[in-house]
């Protein structure tokens, strides 16, 4: 096996082209030793294109090789995509966050990947370039082919960055997880939400939960409950019920029963929506 640290995106694509399916791209490589190794690895962690984090043209653009630690620290992300900063701060351990990347979190297609859950709630799209030089955008939730299987073919496609609209005034986002331990733990459930308000009325809402299906899952019925209303006690209680009943969840000996996981989805959905709502209201009228 050979290992190449690519110096720019074109070089990385060239290597993939030349290797005819024998090479694969990686970034943080934290899951590398858990898999069978290909003949060639192309490391994207040092590319200019994949390590930038910026706001331009009305979009937040996060390079796929931005680490969880830098995303969690970034003032830009903390102020305009709080859910993502919160998610990145809870992944694994400091050591894993220092090397694991946002793009890897998406491309690995783990069903409870914290960053991916936040990205879906934020409405993020992956900007993907293939070896033909074609670039396309796909919603993060569309990138899942099954449990731990991505539609991205890492021998011919590269996620360059993830883009979404930053939270503006009147918008708020939040992420929460429930894990059996406060560090070094996979979550039993993780949720994220993004809400836009006008006055105290909810104008738009995206609510995501995992692990429910292979991909982070939008809770459309729960979202519908909150559209165009000023939420009060009754609604929040309904939100919990709706979120819990909207999901099909599985249990496992290792983690918890399906019934309990369903209950957690409900509780966390309500909590994360409330938090996102409060943040949205607080930022309405110029406060951040």
């Amino acid at each position, binding site marked *: *096996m*050979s*290992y190449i*640290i690519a110096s720019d995106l074109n070089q990385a694509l060239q290597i993939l082209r030349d290797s005819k399916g024998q090479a694969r791209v990686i970034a943080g*490589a*934290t899951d*590398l*030793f*858990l898999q069978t*190794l290909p003949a060639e*690895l192309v*490391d994207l*962690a040092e590319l200019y294109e994949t390590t930038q984090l910026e706001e331009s043209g009305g979009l937040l653009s996060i390079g796929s090789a931005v680490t969880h*630690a830098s995303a969690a620290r970034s003032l830009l992300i903390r102020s305009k995509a709080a859910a993502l900063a919160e998610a990145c701060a809870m992944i*694994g*351990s*400091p*050591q*894993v966050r*220092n*090397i694991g990347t946002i793009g890897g979190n998406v491309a690995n297609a783990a069903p409870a990947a914290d960053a991916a859950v936040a990205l879906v709630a934020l409405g993020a799209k992956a900007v993907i370039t293939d070896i033909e030089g074609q670039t396309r955008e796909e919603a993060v939730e569309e990138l899942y082919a099954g449990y731990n299987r991505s539609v991205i073919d890492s021998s011919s496609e590269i996620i360059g960055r993830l883009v979404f609209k930053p939270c503006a005034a009147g918008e708020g986002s939040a992420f929460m997880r429930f894990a059996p331990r*406060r*560090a*070094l733990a996979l979550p039993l459930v993780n949720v994220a939400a993004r809400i836009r308000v006008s006055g105290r009325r909810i104008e738009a809402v995206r609510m995501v939960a995992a692990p429910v299906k292979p991909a982070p899952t939008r809770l459309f019925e729960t979202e519908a409950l909150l559209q165009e209303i000023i939420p009060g006690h009754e609604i929040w209680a309904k939100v919990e019920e709706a979120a819990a009943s909207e999901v099909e969840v599985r249990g496992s000996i290792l983690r918890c029963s399906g019934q309990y996981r369903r209950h957690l989805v409900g509780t966390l959905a309500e909590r994360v929506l409330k938090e996102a709502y409060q943040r949205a209201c607080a930022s309405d009228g110029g406060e951040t």
Partner: protein
Amino acid sequence: MKKQAINFELNGEPVEVFTEASGSLLHLLRGQLGLLGTKEGCGAGECGACTVLLDNQPVNACLVPAAKIEGKQVQTIESLSTSNTVHPLQESFVKKGAVQCGFCTPGMVLSAYALLKANPDPTPGEVKEAISGNLCRCSGYKQVEEAVLDAAEKKDQASSED
């Protein structure tokens, strides 16, 4: 197995090694370079015993492909002491009783070292967060936390005396 040349900075010195590209940084350090201070507790990034600093950031050496360190700085526990001096942080670890079996200690010290470099005056909560990827079965972490805070205080004093 194919080997490739890797150039990097190890504990402040330039190093060139020929190593299996598919191997981990941990195996490079322990197996090839004889730096046994970096411990292996699980080999899966779940215990933090193999924590080293990669460009000043704590990482699990067992999860880092050796080839990834090309051009980077790697710092191991061996860098913090000489034959007759130890780092003040290590003194604090001893003074506060933060070392029992000692197996997690090198990784724990490096996590704390990186924290103090980035944040010279951490809160107890920040210390706990910084060492949350380093499992310790002996101490209950309390003495580790005290040691890191003690070292931070020493640093404060040292800098106010300047």
